[in-house]
Structure formats: C-alpha cells, structure tokens
C-alpha cells in the first residue's frame, strides 16, 4: 500500500492512498485504503492521514478519522493523536501497521507498530528524510 499526505502554501491538506490489497485475498475483500475515514482522510481543521497495515483493523478502528477527531475534539497535537491511535487504540485490538499524517502547520507524524515500513518526507524546513524501517 502506498500513500501520500501534503500541505500546500495555502495550508490546504490532502491525502491519497492506493493499494493492490493482500496476497491471495478473495471474496472481493476490500481493506481500509479506499475507505474514507478508515485509511484515508483529510480536513484542513485538523490533519490529512494515509494508513497502511492490516486493513480489517483499520476499518474497525476508523483510524484516519479517529486521529482527526482526537485533534478536533480533544485538542491533541498531531503527534499525540497519531501516537494514541497507532500505539494504543489500534494495538489494543491487535491491529498492525502505521500511518503518515500532516497538519496545516506542516507538522508531520509517521508512527507505526510493525516492521517493514517504507517512508519519505520533506518537512517545512526542506529537510528530506528517506528511510526503510526494518
């Protein structure tokens, strides 16, 4: 699964996610990637989020929208909200994976709770980071 989140000069946020699903899937199984609010979500008031991992758990936890809600209604920062969702809420139901998220100030968070994460980012200072978390 691949995904991207961005903040432009106007402070507008966007998120996109694309996937080939899971190897050997059947019965028309769909994961979280294409589900708005589960695997993909963007709202200028809070953040833009793209998820990757075992989709069934991300759907049940409504992960992307949950991050946004924690920011909007509980006043958490992007870092706090993403950590809470990935390391506590998702993990509590056995969900493995991670997400990338960005807010309107250009802050980036990329938490995960499993191996095999391929990530790249360019922050507001222009610092480029490319990493494979094994």
């Amino acid at each position, binding site marked *: 699964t691949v995904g991207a989140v961005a903040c*432009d000069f106007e402070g507008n946020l966007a998120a996109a996610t*694309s996937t080939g699903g899971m190897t050997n899937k059947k019965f028309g199984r769909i994961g979280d*990637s294409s*589900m708005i609010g589960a695997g993909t979500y963007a709202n200028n008031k809070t953040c833009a989020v793209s998820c*990757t*991992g075992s989709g069934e758990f991300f759907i049940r936890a409504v992960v992307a929208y949950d991050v946004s809600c924690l920011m909007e209604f509980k006043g958490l920062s992007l870092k706090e909200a993403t950590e809470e969702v990935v390391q506590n809420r998702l993990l509590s139901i056995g969900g493995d994976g991670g997400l990338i998220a960005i807010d309107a100030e250009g802050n980036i968070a990329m938490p995960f709770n499993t*191996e095999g*994460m391929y990530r790249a980012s360019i922050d507001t200072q222009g610092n480029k980071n490319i990493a494979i978390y094994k």
Partner: protein
Amino acid sequence: MKKIALAIHGGAGTLLKGMMTAEKEVSYKKTLEAAITAGYNILEHNGNSVDAVVEALKLLEDSPLFNAGKGSVFTNAGTHEMDAAIMNGGNLEAGAVSLISGIKNPVLLAKDIMEKSEHVFLAGTGAMDYAELLGYKLEPEDYFYDEFRFQQWQEIKNSGNFQLDHSVKKDSKFG
C-alpha cells in the same frame, strides 16, 4: 504564507533479515526519493496539495516494488484487484475506487470520481464502466506481472491464508 511539507509511505509487513539486499534497498530508496521529489516540486511551484499527493502516488504506482498499481499482489484467483482513495481537506470532497483491474494509476480514477462524478465511492464493474466512460486505457495482464509477487502467491494460494505486502514466511524459499 504557510509552509509546505509532504510525506509518503510504501507498504507494511515483515521484512525478514536477509531479504532486503543492499541493491534492493537502493532501488526502494531511489523510488521513494523520486516520488517525494515529484510531489514536492508541485508544492514548491505553488501547486495544490491534491495534485502533489497524486503526483507522488503515480510514481509509486508505476513501480513494481510497491503493492499498488504495477506492483499489485495477486488475488486468490490469480488476478489483480486495486483500491484507491483521495480526499481534499479544504472542501472535504473525496473520491474512492475499489476492486478495479487493468487501470495503470488507480489514484487518478479516484481523483476523477472526486472531481467529475456526483459520487464518492465506485466499485467493481461499475467503477470499470466509469473508467471506460472517461477514456481510461486498460493495461494488459502482463503489465502487472512480477515474478516475486507471483511466488508470494504460489506459496500461500492453497492455504486459505492471505498476507500483507512484504510478508514472507520464516521457511520461505524466496525469503
């Protein structure tokens, strides 16, 4: 004026020790760098965030290294079924597509659904009909063929199991 920023991801799953060669690692990083640079170039030239995420994803979808577009994994039936979604945080518009085949860049179809249709989510044959209506060209099956993906599928196709992008069993013959 706000500051620009961009992040991308490609995959989740277990990478067992020894599976990632130095050569492979360079290829993955090169593709990630090309994708993040392409998206960032749009932002730098005053482009919008929607176009930036689409541009970055197109490059990842065109690579066989990641499980999306060209690199999509095999289903139990030996086919490829792709899903994609996009959302604009400025107006909360969204577009999504599921269970499509043969489309080179599913993210473009998701964007077209967001911008050109009255709907948010199209799936399966209906989504394919909509793609045809918009003039999308279908890639042949061999465009999506990848030997590594094929072997991943062979290893579990009779097991009833399914697995994430980069998962490899401990006793895998191709790990």
